[in-house]
């Protein structure tokens, strides 16, 4: 196994591909957090009174809450007063077309491989690009508008569709839900809003690329997706961030609402800066994601490929309220260096005949730590509910860690819950078999790891599957020595 060591070392040392900082003038509120800062954010965004009140209420809640300690992650205390809570690329008037967008910004997107100019020509992917905290360009609006789909930044939605925002915002993740959700509610600056009307299949995959820029700016995105009766939408979220020495906090909240017979597919490829080899720098990714299957036969599916961030703390969940509703969670989490991931899901079965599937694949290498933490709850009324959970961990190297913490709470005798978890390294016999057939160790490992993750990758939309596989190969190919 030692033949591959050099390659391995080289790959492990490989620096973060997307590490660059765009020099662009930002309009930033000085660091610090208090009610005035929240009022300022709200004022700059020209928000209605009820939203400001909600933010302040959340802030007051947050002050009384304590940071969660239960996750198996370690990091120095976060100084919330050292963070700047608002950063918006400076602009005089909102751009009406791409031509008006700051060219430096466009360059950044190009480096990231999302050339906006080519977006319209791309096969049906509309990108609402969030650069720091304010949306600066939105495409394909007309086409979506034809279908009646609303796809815009949440600030815009607050102005244009206040009734929808007011009805649904915070209805899935209440302000006091948890420490980071409360913080997000108080200071969120921007994010995405999607509304799919009744009987509508969204004509294209919706996608937002989040990108953190401007030093010391925490990102507090807020995403709200509502799929009305019998509608369907697939939403893609992908992230990269510039290299930096200071830890950056990202505490997003994502709320999904699926009404009767609606289907929401939410896919994430997360590739934020994980910190250097020693674990310095890197993003803290403390995200609250939750979907609510409110109607009969609603269906929410989460797929995530998590390769980045210094710390990932993320549990995309489904509340299966409606009868016959369905929740899915497919996850690949890769950690290397000193990365720490504590991720999983919650499936709360409340309705009859609700079904959930959990497939989690954790891969840990070097000094990293990777944990699956999940909850499956069968409420007393979850008649004939079903859950199947499969968690597999792959360990690469003898300094990493893989943990599995599943919780199962069953209060209905007709419910059926199954959980399986395995932890192992890449089988010597599998490697031997491949090498015996003339494959290099590199290729063999790549093939085996890809096979290990296949169940999850095949759930990704095609656009993302390619990126996910590439990420995996960058992160891991040959990491076995």
């Amino acid at each position, binding site marked *: 196994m030692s033949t591959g060591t050099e390659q391995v070392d080289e790959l492990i040392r490989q620096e973060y591909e997307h590490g660059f900082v765009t020099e662009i003038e930002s309009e930033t509120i000085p660091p610090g957090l208090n009610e005035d800062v929240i009022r300022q954010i709200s004022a700059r965004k020209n928000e209605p009174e009820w939203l400001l009140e909600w933010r302040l209420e959340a802030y007051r809640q947050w002050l009384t809450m304590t940071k969660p300690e*239960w996750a198996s992650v370690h990091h120095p205390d976060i100084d919330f007063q050292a963070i700047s809570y608002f950063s918006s690329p400076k602009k005089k008037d909102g751009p009406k077309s791409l031509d008006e967008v700051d060219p430096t910004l466009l360059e950044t997107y190009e480096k990231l491989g999302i050339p906006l100019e080519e977006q319209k020509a791309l096969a049906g992917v509309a990108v609402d690009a969030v650069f720091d905290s304010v949306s600066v360009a939105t495409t394909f609006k007309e086409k979506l508008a034809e279908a009646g789909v609303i796809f815009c930044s949440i600030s815009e939605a607050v102005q244009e569709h206040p009734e929808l925002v007011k009805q649904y915002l915070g209805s899935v993740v209440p302000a006091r839900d948890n420490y980071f959700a409360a913080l997000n509610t108080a200071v969120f600056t921007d994010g995405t809003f999607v509304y799919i009307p009744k009987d509508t299949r969204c004509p294209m995959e919706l996608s937002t690329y989040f990108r953190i820029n401007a030093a010391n700016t925490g990102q507090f995105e807020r995403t709200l997706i509502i799929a009305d009766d019998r509608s369907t939408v697939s939403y893609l979220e992908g992230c990269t961030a510039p290299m930096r020495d200071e830890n950056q906090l990202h505490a997003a909240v994502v709320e999904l609402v699926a009404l009767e017979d609606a289907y929401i597919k939410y896919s994430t490829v997360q590739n934020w800066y994980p910190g250097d080899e020693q674990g310095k720098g890197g993003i803290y990714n403390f995200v609250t994601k939750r979907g609510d299957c409110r109607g009969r036969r609603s269906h929410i599916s989460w797929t995530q490929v998590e390769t980045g961030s210094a710390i990932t703390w993320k549990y995309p969940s489904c509340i299966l309220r409606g009868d016959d509703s369905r929740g899915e969670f497919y996850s690949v989490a890769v950690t290397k260096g000193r990365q720490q991931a504590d991720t999983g899901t919650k499936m709360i079965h409340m309705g009859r005949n609700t079904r959930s599937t959990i497939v989690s694949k954790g891969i840990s290498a070097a000094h990293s730590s990777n944990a699956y933490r999940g909850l499956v709850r*069968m409420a*007393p009324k979850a*008649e*004939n509910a079903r859950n199947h959970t499969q968690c597999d*961990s792959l*360990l*690469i*190297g*003898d*300094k*990493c*860690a*893989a*943990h*599995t*913490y*599943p*919780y*199962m*709470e*069953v*209060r*209905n*005798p*007709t*419910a*059926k*819950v*199954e*959980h*399986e*978890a*395995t*932890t*192992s*390294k890449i089988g010597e016999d599998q490697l031997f078999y491949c090498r015996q057939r003339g494959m290099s160790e590199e290729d063999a490992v790549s093939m085996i790891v890809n096979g290990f993750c296949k169940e999850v990758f095949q759930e990704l939309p095609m656009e993302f599957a390619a990126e996910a596989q590439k990420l995996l190969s960058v992160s891991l190919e040959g990491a076995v020595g």
Partner: protein
Amino acid sequence: MSEALKPVEHYRALIAAAGPSLPGAGQPWLDARRQAAAARFAEQGFPTRKTEEWRYSSIGQVLEQPFRYRDEAFEALTDSDIEDLLLVEQPAARLVFTNGRLVPHLSTTDGLDSAVSLISLRAAIEQGSEFVDQWLGKAIIDSDLETFEALNTALLNDGMCLHIPAGVSIEQPIEVLYLSVGLDEPNVMTPRNLIVLDRGASARLVEQYASTTDAAYFNNGLTEILLGEDAELEHDRLQDEAAQAYHMSVIHLAQAARSRYRGMVASLGGTWARTEYHTAFSAEEAGCELAGFYFAGDGQLTDIHLDVRHPVPRCNSEQKFKGILAGRGKAVLDGRIRVVQDAQQTEAHLSNDTLLLSRNAEVDTKPQLEIFADDVKCSHGTTVGQLDPMQLFYLRARGIQADTARKMLCLGFADEVLESCTVPAFIERVDQKLQHRLADVHIDTTTSG
């Protein structure tokens, strides 16, 4: 417990009052341990639902009981009184405890190899046995005692003290019976066992907790087992406490190289019962096999906690637990396997299956893997469900009544775990008890699946 006193204060008062009359009081080595434990207990206090290990098991019920500490055996029993309870026909030795204290006239150690030492802990302390001083607390890897362990140690009194010297093998099982009898007010007992098998020794141990009383009582037991190199122990435990009883059993197991441990617990009784196994290997190629069966009906909580540690390479462990819940029965299973960084070639597997027979039963299960080594094979599997309609159909199609068919399936389910026990009477007893319990159970058949 007087109204004014909080639970911790209540127990501190019990400890303070009992202290001077406990065996060996005044012996510095023992006083030091009891005092340290009492201090630890006071410092820790009782766990709450916020303590992760107690997330699903509320101890409120336990704390509400005004337990006394009456340190007295119930002697007025004869062999014929306990005859029906016994599980081993010709035991190598038998110890009978009533209300936490050894009853010598019901106990016998005549059949034992003269090199083997089996006496009550109390006798060992009173004889000033260095053995107790040397080994007590050694199996507890985290030397910090948990609350209930500290309470047990602060009130360290009686129990079994077994030492099997190197190379000695005891073929017939040693039987130990803990009987709660004749109690008229709620009493707390603190059985403490110390079991040491030297290199190459082997033994079989059958323990049973039973009662002939309806009173509430609390058995807060702590057992330490140390297995030397190549030692082997088979250890079967039947928890069949009274319906109103509270039961806590903590077992700490420390295993040296190539030692084998096979443990089984059948947890059937008590209104609140918790069994904890803490196992750790100190050297390579040791093996630990734990199995358990639990049944909980109306008004019962049964809780099993497993903490299986692999601190060294090339050891294997296997945990297999099954349970049946009826009525408003509630079960908790929390099983943790920890493999440290250098414990390569570890193999550890945990499985937990629970059958829910009623609408109001509840199970909370939490198998955990914490793995820091890469060359390991670890897994856990959990299922929760009801009786398989296909299996029921198969039996009914062969003319078996629905009720009988269900009971057959339940017994078959339990026997898959029980069969690893090597004491036939143990399996029979659990089967009998289970049939008896199932006879009162209405099995919900409202399945549409």
